[in-house]
């Protein structure tokens, strides 16, 4: 029963990892940008949440839409200025600029907010509430809620990209930006919108991380970016369903590892990542690029 419990907990954590990963996946899929500052931006979103709560005293759940909008605006501006500038100068420049942003954000947060970790919404009753199935399986409502939210976000994004008119435009630009430009689409604006969407999902991920555990300046790269990347690789590049599956596989692997030996939690996840990298480099779902 302990094992079943561990696997269920891992599955729920996997939803959070999929949330981490979907922004990374989207930005690579559309702009071919590997955003090394991805995890640190999630931490920024978490601190924005802390700030919004401190100023307005609104309940933590209401901060999610506020921070999502804020981060989407930041994403659009950042994409249209620095990242677009880097894209036009080549892949190496893009990597250096996003890596530089990552280091600047991480150290800047440490200067302003110290290295201490903070939690979001500590004291709200739903954060600690849980229900149990049988005697051994205890499921916190929060973890279940985040898992459901992750599925809704990924499903919604997938539908948005495949069904709506603007989603098709984003895919067209992703496939061939010159051709889309010739057909009258301003690809820079489309890139900006895609970045805004990606940053919005990053905001949700950052606040969920803050609610489920705590946030501190260093988790941006140590956990969020690397777990997000592992999820993307395990699931297969360019597929949002694959990203969800990859997050779940990573979460379950970590939970099983932690069950054997608590200090093996991250290692067990990376072991699966390396295994997939060697045996099935195209990922578990080997469908073609979708996003």
């Amino acid at each position, binding site marked *: 029963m302990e094992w079943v419990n561990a696997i269920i907990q891992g599955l729920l954590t996997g939803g959070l990892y999929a949330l981490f990963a979907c922004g990374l996946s989207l930005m*690579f899929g559309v702009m*071919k*940008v*590997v955003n*090394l500052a991805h995890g640190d931006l999630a931490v920024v979103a978490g601190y924005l949440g802390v700030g919004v709560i401190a100023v307005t005293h609104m309940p933590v759940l209401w901060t999610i839409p506020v921070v999502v909008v804020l981060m989407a605006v930041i994403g659009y501006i950042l994409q249209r200025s*620095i990242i677009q*500038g*880097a894209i036009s*100068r080549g*892949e*190496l*420049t*893009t*990597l*250096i*600029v996003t*890596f*530089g*942003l990552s*280091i*600047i954000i991480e*150290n*800047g947060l*440490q*200067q302003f907010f110290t*290295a201490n970790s903070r939690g979001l919404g500590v004291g709200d009753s739903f954060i600690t509430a849980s229900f149990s199935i049988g005697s051994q399986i205890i499921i916190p409502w929060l973890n279940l809620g985040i898992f459901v939210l992750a599925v809704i976000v990924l499903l919604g994004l997938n539908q948005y990209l495949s069904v709506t008119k603007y989603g098709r435009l984003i895919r067209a630009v992703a496939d061939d930006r010159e051709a889309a430009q010739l057909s009258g689409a301003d690809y820079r604006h489309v890139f900006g919108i895609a970045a805004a969407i990606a940053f919005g999902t990053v905001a949700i991920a950052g606040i969920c991380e803050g609610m489920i555990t705590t946030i501190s300046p*260093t988790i941006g*790269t*140590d956990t969020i*970016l*690397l777990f997000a*990347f*592992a999820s993307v*690789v395990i699931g297969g*590049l360019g597929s949002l369903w694959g990203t969800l599956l990859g997050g779940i596989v990573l979460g379950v692997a970590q939970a099983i590892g932690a069950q054997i030996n608590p*200090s093996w939690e*991250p*290692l067990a996840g*990376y072991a699966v*990542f*390396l295994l997939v*990298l*060697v045996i099935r*480099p195209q990922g578990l779902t080997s469908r073609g690029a979708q996003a």
Partner: protein
Amino acid sequence: MTGQLAAGSRSADFSDVRVTRSRRNTVPSGIGALVLIVVLFALPFYVKSGPLGIMVQGLIVLTLASMWNLLAGYAGLVSVGQQAFFGLGAYFVLIPAMHGITPWFGLVIATIAAGACAVPLWWLVARLRLGYFAIATWVLASVVMLVIEQISSIGGGTGEPLPGLSGMQPAVLTAYTYWAALAVAVLAIGGVYLLLRSKIGLTLTAIRDDERAARSSGVRVGLARMGVFIAAAAGCGAAGGVLAIEQLQVVPGTSGGVFSVQWTAEMAFAVIIGGIGTIEGPILGTIVYMVLQQTLQSYNAWYLIILGVVAITIALFARRGLWGTVVDRFNIRLFPVGYHLWASGEGQRWRRRRRRPATQAAS
């Protein structure tokens, strides 16, 4: 291609065309480099331990920057996980020292062992392209750290003091550490210079200029990249070994430890600021780094933030870095690794024309 030109210069048609490594005479700059090394070697006889300690830090960053430049500037491998080899180097000095082998010889072990560790890790990431390669190396560095932290006999997650040097006087130890750091840095830069002048250098230049064309001309791209990855790992390992000796302890961990991504940030920023894809760039970048770090050392990590802002600005607006700007203006090369094709009678008039050399792309 430049090789054919060199051969052609012997035939009758091109009798007045010469091909040399540099437009200018390299003897003065070579002598200058030798004098500089001698002066740096004699430094412990004139300055106190404090400045020497700062020099050791600078030489560590210089070694790391030269290695990262080789990776990113010549082989197109943007690694964000070089701290893996840096940390492994520190541990490969620590582990022999715990079994009674002197840390000075440990540096040799660290260099070879870090290079050897790069072989299986390369096999894991070799397939990945630029951006994914970058994050994958970061994951590998994290994995290496997590594995090392599991081994309690070498300090686990808390670290271990370095034995074997407690008998030495502090001043003598600082001087020896400085010489070790200097030797590692000189060997690293010299190694990069010789590597780039060799056949591998020509291969790397071909890859850098046009990978697809190089591949279709039969250049073994994967093999050259693997060689560079292993060489850079060995260099970073040696630098990590020097750090272990300087700090007299090895601490793992991502914040402040040997596996901190900060090491890769420092080497990358130094390379970008100095000028990527030139041997002189990392040297200049390290000087900028040291000046910033020393002037802002009482403001915690602000030097790193400012360094990051400068690196982003240079990456966006002056891609060739500080040294690239110098080359463009004055056409100086301290370490010529390319070739220059002299037009007939060009030698007498180059001073007034100040034209960019015809084979700029190959340098």
